[in-house]
């Protein structure tokens, strides 16, 4: 059949619907008006009508056999109710087991993180210090010590904001690096829960505030490493300017509150930046409390730092795995719900 022009899909739909009596009254009247004057439309309608007539000549197929069901067929294929019974325990058990495994991994991860932050001293070996939000302890070097022999005192804040140090470490520190108790810095006005200062052996030149801000940004660990690196090079860290009046050879001091160490690095950074600004000397005015004893200076080389970071990384990995397992458990539980429907 040669058409003078192709019909649009809309016209084809109208013609097809017209054959089936599926047009509205207005559509039917409009189409019949066009059919009276449009020969192409009429030819198309005839063609479609003949096509439908040919299609309808197809005989329905006969079933080649009986499809009547037998009890065996029903038994082989479980009923939907049976499928629910089968599906429910498997998905639910998988979900519960995944959640349990996630909880175990989470517990291990948290324990790894807590272990990696600071060792918990033995109760009999603890010196209770004055309550304060944050303590900054400066431990001077001997004049002959090199900068690679950095000394770090780690003071861990208890939930009651009380500092604890090992008594034996403190006594040993006093022998190794005689330093008056009043040279230790305690800054009650510091509101940050975690801060880190790196102080060079000699007072370094005062750094501009922007450099101070830059060096004290980021999470605590990276700041710690950057400062240690600065100190090893003898160039002076950001905290050096802040400790000009503290001592000649201060040590690296780290004070952390366990409840805030992981969750509020920004807070710690902001406060540290403020603290380290040399234009605010009052912030670092040493206020000896008389109850703070210098702790044992500990050698802290890179190898030890790596060993300290390893449990933390492991902890994070375990926590990540726990989160993934929680997600899988949730998905399995949702799957169980879907099947149950």
């Amino acid at each position: 059949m040669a058409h003078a022009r192709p019909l649009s899909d809309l016209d084809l739909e109208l013609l097809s619907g017209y054959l089936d009596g599926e047009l509205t009254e207005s559509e039917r009247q409009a189409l019949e008006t066009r059919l009276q004057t449009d020969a192409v439309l009429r030819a198309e309608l005839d063609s479609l009508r003949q096509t439908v007539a040919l299609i309808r000549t197809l005989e329905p197929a006969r079933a080649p056999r009986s499809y009547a069901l037998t009890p065996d067929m029903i038994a082989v294929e479980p009923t939907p109710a049976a499928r629910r019974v089968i599906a429910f325990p498997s998905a639910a058990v998988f979900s519960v087991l995944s959640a349990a495994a996630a909880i175990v991994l989470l517990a291990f991860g948290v324990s790894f993180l807590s272990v990696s932050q600071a060792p918990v001293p033995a109760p009999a070996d603890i010196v209770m210090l004055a309550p304060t939000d944050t303590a900054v302890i400066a431990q001077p070097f001997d004049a002959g010590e090199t900068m690679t022999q950095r000394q770090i005192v780690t003071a861990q804040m208890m939930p009651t904001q009380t500092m604890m140090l090992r008594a034996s470490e403190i006594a040993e520190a006093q022998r190794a690096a005689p330093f008056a108790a009043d040279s230790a810095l305690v800054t009650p006005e510091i509101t940050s829960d975690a801060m880190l200062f790196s102080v060079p052996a000699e007072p370094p030149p005062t750094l501009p505030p922007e450099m101070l801000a830059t060096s004290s940004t980021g999470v605590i660990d990276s700041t710690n490493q950057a400062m240690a690196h600065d100190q090893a090079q003898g160039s002076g860290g950001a905290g050096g300017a802040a400790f000009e009046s503290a001592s000649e050879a201060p040590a690296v001091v780290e004070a952390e509150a366990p409840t805030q160490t992981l969750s509020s690095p920004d807070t710690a950074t902001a406060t540290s930046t403020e603290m380290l600004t040399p234009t605010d000397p009052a912030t670092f005015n040493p206020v000896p409390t008389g109850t703070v004893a210098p702790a044992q200076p500990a050698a802290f080389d890179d190898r030890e730092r790596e060993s300290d970071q390893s449990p933390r990384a492991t902890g994070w990995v375990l926590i990540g795995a726990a989160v993934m397992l929680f997600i899988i458990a949730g998905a399995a539980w949702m799957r169980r719900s879907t099947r149950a429907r």
Partner: protein
Amino acid sequence: MWFIILPVTKMSMLNPDNEQALIQQARRGDAAALDAFNGLVLRYQDSVYTLALRIMIDPASADDVTQAAFIAAYQRLETYQGGSFKAWLLRITTNQAYDELRRLKRRPSVSVDELPGAASDDGAPLPDPADTPEQINESRELQRAIQRCIDALSDDYRVVLVMCDLEDYDYSATAAVLGIAQGTVKSRLSRARSNVRDCLQAVQELLPARFRLKGDG
């Protein structure tokens, strides 16, 4: 099994209005439930098999789909909420056929000899005894050509064409069975018919003269 089916068949044939009674009896789940459901199977198995064959094209696949559809219908009988049982059954059949098509992930290329309705097929219509051998051959050739053109349609078009032109469903019923909009049925059916028309025009030289489309050159 015939001794089980026979009484049910007689019962269903004697009273064509007892479809709902059979459904209710099949829902009870007692010993007679399966027999009651088999009465429905015998009533609709030709329609179910025809639909399955039109969708699957392959008789063996249609056989599997038909059996699976009746099993699924029995197991889901509690979801039947009245209305046309045939439409509900054909919806299950359509879903089963689509699932099978997806599983096979193939579109079989059917040769003329393998077309449903061929002499070797189980579903071949019986020839009219009044027809001459020439007329029978012409009719079979026409049936093959039409079937071939229908099989060449896409699944969506083919199913709509089968439902509307071979199963005599109106647009709304077809839309209900397939779960699509009525406008979609309208457009798909229009394109399916147009495609079949073009297909038949391409092979009309093979058709007997009395079956050629009018106005075709």
